[in-house]
């Protein structure tokens, strides 16, 4: 007889084996990463295949077709985007190739393209046609080179601020939703907002970045909209500020969370679904509707950034431990709703326990809030120095 414990070990082993084999299978399956970013004069689409790239480009009036030679259907990985020019993507099978359709919001666009190595990327820049570029068609070799150089110098300028341009701070709860409550009447939403506002000030004074708050006053905002605000603003880092609460009276200290990778098989199933239903996939990409496919795509956005998110959580937690001398509760993973749709490294800081009267008292003092702000700021700065410099 197999004891229940052994049995569980066996099951766990089987699950692990399944997951591992899934991972290796997904590595064999080719994939294609798509990203869209708007610049002042153009919108850039970057196509990053996991396989040797051989392609052809055809231009229509409000779309572009990129024929990509490959036998197996590649998996598409795409971040949510909001672009002036790019409307949506589509994906269809041709003979021994697949066609990526890029639809534009404007008619008569012009474009440039170039290929970068390491990793191989096809970069397509879309701009409105009315400018001096003599209509459509491919730019000459030289024009291309100069365009490429200027694009690069632009990117380099940006990375002067270490690649981080926009930080979104999300003070938890608000409005109708007070969040956790302290014994002496302290409300999570108030402390989170106070810390968020201070943090915005400190970051803006010290770093050349834009800081966006998901709320600047006492209003209700849905968890999905908080992620949407981050993505709409092309957030490079996302920090949600919360105050913790526990059933344990003694619970105290700071914790920094990042999203846990849950239900891996579910995600695989969703991906498979999208691959098999490219039409709906496309619909989903267009969608500013509440359409389910859109939600699924947004739902998965954070899973591409878990590694960076864990590093950000670590650097922030390090400083919190150091500066606050609160007990190290360390970094943790949990399926936080607000983090799941954010398309950049994202963490949730639980500053202290409002359920602990001692910490509730601290949360009402300016020095404690200032210390928290300084710790988070230093953590951010360390993260940028260590990991975000290119």
């Amino acid at each position, binding site marked *: 007889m197999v*004891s*229940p*414990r052994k*049995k569980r070990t066996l*099951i766990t082993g089987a699950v692990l084996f399944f997951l591992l084999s899934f991972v290796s299978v997904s590595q064999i399956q080719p994939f294609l990463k798509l990203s869209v970013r708007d610049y002042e004069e153009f919108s850039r689409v970057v196509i990053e295949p996991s396989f040797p790239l051989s392609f052809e480009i055809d231009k229509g009036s409000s779309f572009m077709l990129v024929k990509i030679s490959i036998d197996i259907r590649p998996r598409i990985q795409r971040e949510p985007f909001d672009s002036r020019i790019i409307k949506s993507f589509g994906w269809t099978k041709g003979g021994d190739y697949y066609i990526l359709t890029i639809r534009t919001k404007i008619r008569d666009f012009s474009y440039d393209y170039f290929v970068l190595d390491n990793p191989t990327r096809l970069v397509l820049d879309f701009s409105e046609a009315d400018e001096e570029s003599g209509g459509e068609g491919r730019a000459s070799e030289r024009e291309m080179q100069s365009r490429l150089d200027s694009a690069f110098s632009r990117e380099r300028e940006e990375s002067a601020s270490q690649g981080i341009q926009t930080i979104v701070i999300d003070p*938890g*709860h608000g409005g109708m*939703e007070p*969040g*956790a*409550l302290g014994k002496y009447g302290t409300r*999570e939403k108030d402390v989170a907002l106070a810390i968020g506002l201070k943090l915005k000030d400190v970051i803006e004074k010290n770093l050349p970045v834009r800081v966006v708050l998901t709320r600047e006053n006492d209003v209700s905002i849905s*968890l999905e909209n908080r992620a949407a605000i981050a993505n709409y603003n092309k957030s490079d880092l996302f920090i949600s500020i*919360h*105050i*913790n*609460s*526990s*059933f*344990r*009276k*003694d*619970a105290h200290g700071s*914790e920094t*969370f990042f999203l846990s990778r*849950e*239900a891996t098989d*579910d995600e695989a199933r969703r991906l498979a679904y999208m691959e098999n239903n490219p039409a709906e996939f496309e619909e989903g990409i267009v969608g500013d509707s509440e359409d389910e496919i859109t939600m699924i795509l947004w739902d998965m956005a954070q899973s591409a950034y878990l590694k960076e998110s864990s590093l950000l959580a670590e650097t922030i937690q390090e400083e919190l431990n150091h500066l606050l001398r609160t007990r190290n*509760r360390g970094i943790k993973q*949990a*399926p*936080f*709703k*607000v983090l*799941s749709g954010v398309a950049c490294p994202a963490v*949730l800081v*639980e500053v202290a*326990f*409002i*359920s602990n009267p001692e910490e509730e008292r601290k949360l009402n003092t300016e020095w404690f809030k200032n210390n928290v702000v300084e710790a988070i700021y230093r953590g951010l700065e360390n993260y940028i120095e260590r990991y975000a410099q290119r």
Partner: protein
Amino acid sequence: MGRMRVATLGFLFVVLVILVAVFFLSGIKEKVIPAAPASPPEVEPLPMQPGQTRSVVLFFLSEEDTLLHPEKREIPADLSVVRQAKQTIEELIKGSQKGYISPFPPEAKLRELYVTEEGVAYVDFSKDIVEKHLSGSSAEISTIFSVVNSLAYNFDDIEKVFILIEGRERETLGGHINLSRPFLPLYDLIAQ
């Protein structure tokens, strides 16, 4: 003969006194430590006997650490898995007999529980579990994983747990942990 009788009566009296003492003293002891302390948090479920009870392990919080602590309960073994699972959650809501902390608002009630063929248990709680909840991340995590672990640990037919409130899907309990997907158990949270 008379002496023999006195001795016998005396002996019986002493036995009676001892029995009474044992009876009452053990009663007092039980009040101090509600559960029989003889059973340590042994996690191995006992072999099932037909028509008998089986033991299940419930998971509670403790002031000692941030982990979930196991506590055994006996439930009828001749019930269906669903009824056993229901009873397990009801016992969990009733709280610990060893002084552990219950990660539920006392008003919380189990409305319904069912298990799909794919091994997902749908656990439907009354709205009190949301309205009376502490609404902190740690509190939400404890509530959710005491339910998820208590079910997945004891029942091979349950792999994942989906939490419903008043029969409906809900985004979160109090603004933090995503309830819109089923949870796998987190055995890392269990104290050894």
